[in-house]
């Protein structure tokens, strides 16, 4: 009789550990997936940029400084690797693109061109996708970090080799400023 109780308790304990371990691993994988989604969207945006710059150049060739800013920001964003770097480069590129679109405002022919309109639609949907992917990533990081910090899952972080992850923050000061537009 006692042996059955002891075995039962051991079985329950094992199940408990397995459940905690699996929860941590699952949360960690979700964060990885969410991160991959951000990268997909950032890549898509980076791929749109050369085309966009070329189109704007066709109408506004002398806005060289704006183009340079976009091209530099794009180069930086494609070479970034850690969460913090990617986030900073993403913020800078968003700013540069805002500048480019603000320039486009001054050229009615450009704004009316079908090519520009479709690029603009692609760009704005990609921007939205980037920001939703970021939100989804941060929500999942929050869930993971909560599990890492709270009992009982916090006891098993070593076993599951799972640790708190970094939030994707675009809180760089330049992001708060209104883009500098020269006409």
């Amino acid at each position, binding site marked *: 009789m006692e042996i059955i109780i002891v075995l039962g308790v051991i079985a329950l304990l094992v199940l408990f550990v397995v459940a905690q371990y699996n929860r941590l691993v699952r949360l960690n994988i979700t964060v990885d997936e969410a991160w991959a*989604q951000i990268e997909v969207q950032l890549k898509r945006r980076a791929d749109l940029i050369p085309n966009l710059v070329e189109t704007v150049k066709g109408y506004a060739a002398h806005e060289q400084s704006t183009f340079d800013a976009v091209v530099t920001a794009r180069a930086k964003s494609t070479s970034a690797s850690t969460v913090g770097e990617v986030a900073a480069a993403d913020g800078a590129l968003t700013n540069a693109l805002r500048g480019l679109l603000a320039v486009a405002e001054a050229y009615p022919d450009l704004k009316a061109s079908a090519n520009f309109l479709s690029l603009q*639609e692609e760009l704005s949907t990609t921007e*939205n996708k980037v920001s*939703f*992917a970021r939100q989804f990533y941060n929500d*999942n990081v929050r869930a993971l970090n909560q599990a890492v910090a709270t009992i009982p899952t916090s006891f098993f972080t070593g076993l599951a080799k799972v640790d708190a992850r970094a939030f994707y923050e675009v809180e760089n000061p330049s992001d708060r400023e209104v883009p500098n537009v020269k006409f």
Partner: protein
Amino acid sequence: MAPSSNFRELESANKGKTYFLLASMGLLTWLIAYAALTYFGAGTTSFIVPLAVGISLVGVWGSYYGSDKLVLTMTGAKVITREDAPELFNVIEEVVIASGLPMPKVAIVEDTAPNAFATGRDPDHALIAFTTRILEVMDRDELQGVIAHEMAHVANRDTLVSAVAATTAGAIAMLSDFMMRMMWFGGGRDRRDSNANPILLVVSLVVMILAPIAAMLLKSAISRKRESLADATAVSFTRNPAGLRKALEVLASDTTVVQQKSNAVAHIWIESPLDGKAVSKLFSTHPPIEERIATLRAMESLGPSN
């Protein structure tokens, strides 16, 4: 009005209410089974209760399992691809990323009323549909709100919830029907053998008569809670209550209703197509649209939430 305007609290409150309502459905089923037991005895009850539940289960299960295809034929919706509406797909993809769900199938219903719905047995078989009119009248923000509401139904498994509600309501209605007929045709002979309390017999009779109505009310209440839940979940996806609020205002100001006013699929649309036809607020499948707008407006006043 909702005591809270934070979408997380609203979500858990609405979920809690759904569980409570589903539990009430269970209780109601138990009550009517008990009524059958006191009235007809164990022999008959152990036969008709499983029969009613079984028939109802088979009937609802088929429509639940094939819901994406069935609703297509019932509403005349046509599945479209990215090439047909690239901008709509862009907005849907945005919400899909925000929700972390797989991409649903997308369909269009030719109709002069602005409306939309979601169906499918699980997120992998989800289908969201829009009337041609809603795509004309809504701007990007509003459309995003509508899509988020539909994807929220997918995320909350509302096809399953309403299938469960429909099964129990169906079983209860059928049970009550069986028993009334049996009483009519002189069933319940074993009643005399049992020394049942006469008060209990009267109560059982009342339960039999009232249970189907109560089940209908519960089913409508569940549907209304799921609509409020979908609004809250939609905001958790987009963090933009204003988009959905403006969309609901557009729907509220529009007086045209979807052509097929079939009761069978009324609950799946974002705005009820049976407006003004419902007997009372208690039987309607959707909360009053003004109430939904007010709740969303309260969320807006909280400012951007993370």
